[in-house]
């Protein structure tokens, strides 16, 4: 499987994502935002960072460059399209995922490991993980607070599109385990088909024991597993 890792001016997690995907045996390549084609790629990751400085609104300017054309086309065709942190914000601004990410409840940047409970395995981000599993993954964001209309959140919940929720170490979801004020403790969601998914925490920062956690591996391994399931439905 060949993964395009998209670089906008201001993106900064691109090398980390390529490193992490490489460690788990995937072929990842950087693609600059001015590219007009994504031929030969089976999946796309929009990595974290501060695309266009996060100016105006986070993700707002990054939805326009040429590469977003083929990204949108791949999303429509059912290929895995994953947004991590700033990438999640871009997917929301581009309308590929519902809702928006706004400033954290306490108005300060948060960089620390958080616990996540896997809510649904029906996505390109969670296909390889059992629902109920508790993962420890670093969070690193200022605008990580997920908001949407009650109607939208209701629909996400009803359709199993809520993938990950902030929880405590035992898996209990509570207000005190919510680091940034996200509605319903939502840390990650997917579209109706499950191929487009976004999350605020950084799975690529949790793939080596020497750095503190390997819980991100299963999330990243979900990308090829989901693609395989789509190609060969059981």
């Amino acid at each position, binding site marked *: 499987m060949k993964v395009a890792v998209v670089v906008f001016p201001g993106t900064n997690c691109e090398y980390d994502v390529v490193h992490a995907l490489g460690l788990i045996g995937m072929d990842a390549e950087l693609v600059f935002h001015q590219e007009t084609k994504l031929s030969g790629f089976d999946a796309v990751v929009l990595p974290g960072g501060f695309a*266009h*400085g996060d*100016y*105006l609104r986070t993700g707002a*300017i990054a939805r*326009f460059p040429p590469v977003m054309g083929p990204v949108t086309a791949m999303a429509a065709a059912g290929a895995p399209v994953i947004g991590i942190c700033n990438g999640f914000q871009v997917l929301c601004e581009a309308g590929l995922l519902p809702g928006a990410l706004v400033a954290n409840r306490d108005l300060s940047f948060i960089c620390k490991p958080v616990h996540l409970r896997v809510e649904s395995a029906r996505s390109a981000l969670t296909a390889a993980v059992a629902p109920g599993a508790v993962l420890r993954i670093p969070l690193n964001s200022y605008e990580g607070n997920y908001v949407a209309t009650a109607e939208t959140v209701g629909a996400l919940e009803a359709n199993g599109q809520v993938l990950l929720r902030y929880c405590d170490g035992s898996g209990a979801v509570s207000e005190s385990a919510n680091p940034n004020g996200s509605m319903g403790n939502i840390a990650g969601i997917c579209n109706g088909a499950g191929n487009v998914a976004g999350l605020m925490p950084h799975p690529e920062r949790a793939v080596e024991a020497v750095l503190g956690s390997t819980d991100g591996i299963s999330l990243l391994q979900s990308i090829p597993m989901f693609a395989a399931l789509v190609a060969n439905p059981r």
Partner: protein
Amino acid sequence: MKFRIDIRRKEGLADPEGMTTHKALHNLGYTEVTAAHFGRTIYLEIEGTDAAAAAAEVETMCRQLLANPVIEDFEIGVVG
């Protein structure tokens, strides 16, 4: 009484957010845009009837807290 306070980066200071947004508008074809400047708007509701006194107080608030006179200019307007 309601006051509207517009706070803007001082003339001549870099406005990275404005410049980046200006460039993005150009890239979308709005080449007639010659500049974009960012600012913040604060609405204050204040008790009392002495408009002049309240306006003077709002100005003090701006200097003391709401704006950073080092890098920002502000303008006070009456909304109602």
